[in-house]
């Protein structure tokens, strides 16, 4: 689920086939060079000259000359063919689709924000770290960075693209096989570069449409007093300074939006599975799990913590 060897899109397929060709040709060249090295080093040749550095016969010299020139020409030939092959792959990858689902991805220290573009701003969906895409349709990503340089990379689907402050870069792919593909930030971006993962969830169009519809809804208001108390804890303890929950006053984007927190499989940018215990552990001491992460530990009483997590678990 996380490998360039196992392509799930035409783009990754092209690169993978380029790779296997290069490996085959490159490996053959390596074997030939090393075999030659052993041959010239260890084999007795008839034309071996006497142990006098002055004396290399005309015939030997000619033989050396021919061998070196031939090897040089083969090198040029192989490189030329390879260059042509590479340009054809590059050309194919550069053909951006005319119409595609467009997702704005913003890299933050250390999580991914994903906003689904829509002409109607009220219909734009924003989520984090788990990006749902429809199978068989091209998806275009517009990539930006909120702070430092990050790099968006899901090896099963396409190569990486850097997110650079001040630039908008783009990347696209068409996932042809349904599945969950892991990716990870590829440009060193500080303390938690190692734990900045993302998932691409490729699903059949109908399922994707259902997900979109659900994601556009705000979660229902808390149904009972315990969860109401949990929401109060969320809004009054500092959580709302950084996070968004649709339908509440919490509308900040320093940390990932939590509107549909429980619909995601992981928390902390792919670091922990999204279980109740992990959620409590994360809120209690995020610095123990991701040292240096922007989220501080909040001194909540056990009662507050229980209520808060009760509330968060309603965010489906």
């Amino acid at each position, binding site marked *: 689920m*996380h*490998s*360039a*060897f196992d392509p799930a899109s035409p783009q*990754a397929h*092209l*690169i993978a086939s*380029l790779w296997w060709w*290069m490996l085959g040709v490159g490996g053959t*060249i*390596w074997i030939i*060079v*090393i075999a*030659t*090295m052993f041959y*010239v*080093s260890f084999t007795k040749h008839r034309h071996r000259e006497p142990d*006098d*550095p*002055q004396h*290399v016969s005309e015939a030997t*010299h000619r033989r050396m*000359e021919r*061998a*070196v020139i031939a*090897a*040089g020409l083969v*090198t*040029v030939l192989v*490189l030329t063919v*390879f260059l042509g092959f*590479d340009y054809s*792959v*590059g050309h194919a*990858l550069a053909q951006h689709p005319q119409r595609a689902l467009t997702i704005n991805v913003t890299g933050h220290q250390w999580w991914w924000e994903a906003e689904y573009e829509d002409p109607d701003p009220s219909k734009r969906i924003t989520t984090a770290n788990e990006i749902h895409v429809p199978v068989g349709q091209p998806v275009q990503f517009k990539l930006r960075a909120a702070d*430092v*340089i990050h*790099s968006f990379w899901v*090896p099963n689907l396409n*190569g*990486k*693209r*850097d997110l*650079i402050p*001040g*630039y908008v*870069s783009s990347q696209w792919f068409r996932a042809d096989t349904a599945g969950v593909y*892991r*990716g*990870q*930030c*590829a*440009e*060193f971006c*500080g*303390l938690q*570069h*190692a734990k900045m993962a993302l998932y691409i969830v490729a699903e059949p169009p109908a399922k994707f449409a259902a997900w979109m519809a659900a994601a556009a809804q705000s979660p229902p208001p808390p149904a009972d007093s315990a969860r109401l108390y949990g929401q109060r804890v969320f809004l009054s303890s500092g959580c709302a300074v950084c996070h968004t929950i649709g339908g509440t006053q919490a509308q900040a984007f320093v940390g990932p939006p939590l509107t549909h927190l429980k619909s995601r499989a992981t928390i902390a940018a792919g670091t922990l599975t999204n279980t109740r215990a992990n959620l409590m552990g994360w809120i209690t001491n995020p610095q123990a799990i991701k*040292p*240096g992460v922007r989220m501080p530990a909040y001194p909540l009483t056990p009662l507050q913590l229980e209520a808060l997590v009760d509330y968060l678990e309603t965010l489906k």
Partner: protein
Amino acid sequence: MQNHHEPVVPAGTALSDEDVAREAAALEEVWHGRSGFWGWLTSVDHKSIGKRYIVTAFAMFLAGGILAAMMRTQLMRPENTLLGPDRYNQIFTTHGTTMMFLFAVPIMTAMGTYFVPLMVGARSIAFPRANAFGYWTYFVGVVFLYVSLIANTGPDTGWFAYVPLSGPQYAPGHRVDVWAQVVTFTEIAALVAAVNIIVTTFKMRSPGMSLNRLPLFVWAQLVVSFMIVFAMPAVATGSTLMLAEDRAVNTHWFNPAEGGDALLWQHVFWFFGHPEVYIIFLPALGFITPIVETFARRKVFGYTALVMSNITTAFFAFGLWVHHMFATPIPELGQSLFTAASMLIAIPTGIQIFCWLATLWAGRPEFRVPLLFVLGFIFTFVNGGITGVMLASVAFDKQAHDTFFVVAHLHYVLIGGGVMPLFGAFYFWFPKITGRMLDETLGKVNFWLFLIGVNVAFFPMHVLGLEGMPRRVYTYLSSTGWGPLNLVSTIGAYVIALSVVVFLVNVIKSWIGGEAAGHNPWNSSGLEWATSSPPPPYNFVHVPVTTSRHPLWDTDVHLPVMTGLRSDRREVLITTTFDARPDHRHEDPEPSIWPLYLALCMGLTFIGSIFSPYLVLVGLGASLPGLLAWAWQSLNSHRGPDRVAAPDVLAETT
């Protein structure tokens, strides 16, 4: 045409042993520096400076290696907690900075500083005091980086220090400042060494050593010195000027919010950073030719092709830098140009390897340790070269870039192409530097452990990279499945460490009680073997005259020499640039403390700049008396050049 300027040796003018002994005694008197610790501090002998340069740079290899072992231990298993991210980032940054700036480049220029004057038959290097100054500047950088690391202010944004992560907003504190100033010190040291090597090569060659007879070792050093002159100013502008300004006085070169450009840094850095790789690699190729010639007992095949390969490699090396930036939003058409250039550079490198293989083919290889390391070089480096061509492809690079695949590639190239030949060179020239041979058996153990260790440590990383493991991660989750290959890689790293320990044991054992080497233990052909081991402070009793590319092989018993240089003062012969005809005599400076003093002032200036602009003024003020004293010393001793139209007397000696 090359016979035109050939010096003529008058018949019957052979020097008697007494003449030689008398001359040697007189030279010893004049060229011997002060003894003791003060003598060590004030030495301007290129061999003394070269030796401490080599030792310091090798100590940096060990330090960088220890950091690498710590990283490999941390990554041995998933979610290891030996090192936290803060420590790990300092360690991987310091590892890269050390290996690139404080080990690989300095040790190559150090070898040049030691051997270029000997190989061109000169008594000294062109600017001995500047040479000492360069070493001390580098030494200040070494001490500064490691004191900072131990004090928990080691740089932590990578050896490439990408903005904005290294900018004032995301890297407060002084960690990045340390990096920027360490780079400054090594830039100055490298530039000083480069200028010294260029001038020594062009103006101080032995009479008759026209450029087409220049040893390939010296060609490589010459070409690389020009590369240093063109490459280092780029990173100097980037780090010392722009980044330091952004951090210290709030300029906005790289700050997009104020109209700066974060990508600009990458261009400036890699315009230096890619040639840097060849600055390490080309001198190492320079080591290979004499080793292959000596142990195959054949003159190298394709001298001209090898020289041209050096020059074209250096030229193309400046046209590749964007292949470090294929994942950035640079237009595709522009990128494809850099793909072509990156592939092109494989051609001259390939030709050099073919020439050495042809030489071995015609010869009778004798498998002493230096030659084993050359074979190890081919075995390892060709692998790195092939993955390098793969990475030139934009499409493939977008998968492999910034992953462990690149970590594997760069270590295959730099260890295979740099460190393997360097070990070969150590075994080959250790007898010249110390007068003693390194142990052959320990050498073979050293070689095999190293070869196995390198391949076990770095080969699995190719797979890890394509399985999605990015570089510069302090840990990984066990669910990624990267654990087993990382464990293999760590074991390989420990084998490398073991082989380096064997090498150290060999050096210590042999330096104390190794077999005496004599002038020319390998029966090699270069001029450096025409003097005692270790060479005397004045290098040669009489300046050798060169009549071919392989002076010690082509002259049967007697090496022609010239006489007529004064032996009552430090006098060196200056020859013409292309044909090396004697031009004039020049007085070499006496030992001096001012190079050290000025290097310390330079340290105060640049390290001070981190803390306060006023300390820059203090440092500059303090260096003024040093500059005056340096110039005063020159005025006092230097009586201007004495012109010589032709060598006074040519004679022969054994």
